């Protein structure tokens, strides 16, 4: 799929849920991905959602296979964005993953727990400033 075929929407965190509701109603009935990027220099975490339409909806622009990318930037210190799991149940684990790896909070999510790392894990490993707190690994071949 060529990159030009994507529509890209950038929204403020405050308008995010509203936009997503409209897009859902418009007929984009599948979330193919929900992920995030840590922009440490700018102090934001960008949450990116990829939407796909599998059937025509209310929106006349909405053809089969229409793809929309929604980008939102949240503050890096206290990242929080509304959950869209009530709109697309399938996005449940994606949000858990972003929570686990980036520490983004999703208010409204039914079951926001860690998913990739274990329950006692400290920190969010895909953050650029993540430091592995575990004791340094014992070297198999000692360095000289």
């Amino acid at each position, binding site marked *: 799929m060529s990159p030009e075929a994507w529509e890209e929407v950038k929204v403020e965190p405050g308008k995010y849920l509203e936009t997503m509701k409209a897009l859902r109603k418009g007929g984009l009935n599948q979330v193919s991905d929900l992920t995030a990027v840590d922009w440490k220099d700018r102090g934001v975490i960008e949450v990116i959602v990829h939407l796909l339409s599998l059937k025509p909806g209310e929106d006349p622009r909405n053809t089969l296979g229409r793809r929309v990318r929604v980008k939102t930037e949240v503050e890096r210190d206290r990242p929080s964005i509304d959950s869209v799991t009530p709109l697309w149940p399938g996005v449940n684990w994606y949000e858990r993953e972003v929570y686990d790896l980036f520490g983004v909070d999703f208010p409204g999510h039914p079951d926001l727990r860690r998913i*990739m*790392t*274990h*329950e*006692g*894990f400290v920190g969010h490993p895909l953050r650029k400033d*993540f430091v592995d707190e*575990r004791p340094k*690994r*014992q070297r198999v071949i000692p360095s000289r």
Partner: protein
Amino acid sequence: MGLNNTDVKPTEGQGDDFRLGQHLPGVITTQLQKVINWGRQSSMWYMSFGLACCAIEDIMAAGASRYDLDRLGLFFRASPRQSDLMLVAGTVTEKMAPRIRTLYEQMAEPRYVIALGTCAIAGGPFAGGYNTVLGVDKIIPVDVYVPGCPPRPEALFYGIMKLQEKIRKHGVNPPAPRKAKTAPKEGSKA
């Protein structure tokens, strides 16, 4: 197979091999220990623990018709309670570690473990990762290590033959497995 009859005089050119019907028709005398171990080594039902790419090479390729693990008497069981051998193939994450331990403990004794691939041996290419266990022998005792990334199915077969050799040398009650290198910490913090 090593069913030797020590009571029968070796016939010319036959070595120690016992030949059916030579002594008493339909009667084989052997040591119980040997029969039991022969049974154990020839029907190791394995629980495959495919965790990463090694599973494709060594569970799927080796199990499929070209290499055919079945002909060694190894059958895949989905339940730990029915299996004798655990094939750990792939990267062990800290999330998975307590589950592996639980499943190992659910297996009936005597139980054996083969660690397949550098990941299961020592963390492999992911050893520097934030979520990698540096070898499955940190969690459960391992009998045979099969190195490679991934090992070829032939290497797995060689590992299985080594394990069979080990089983053959057992008494009727196999020795207790040696302890894992480090005890797993409680629950999820392994």
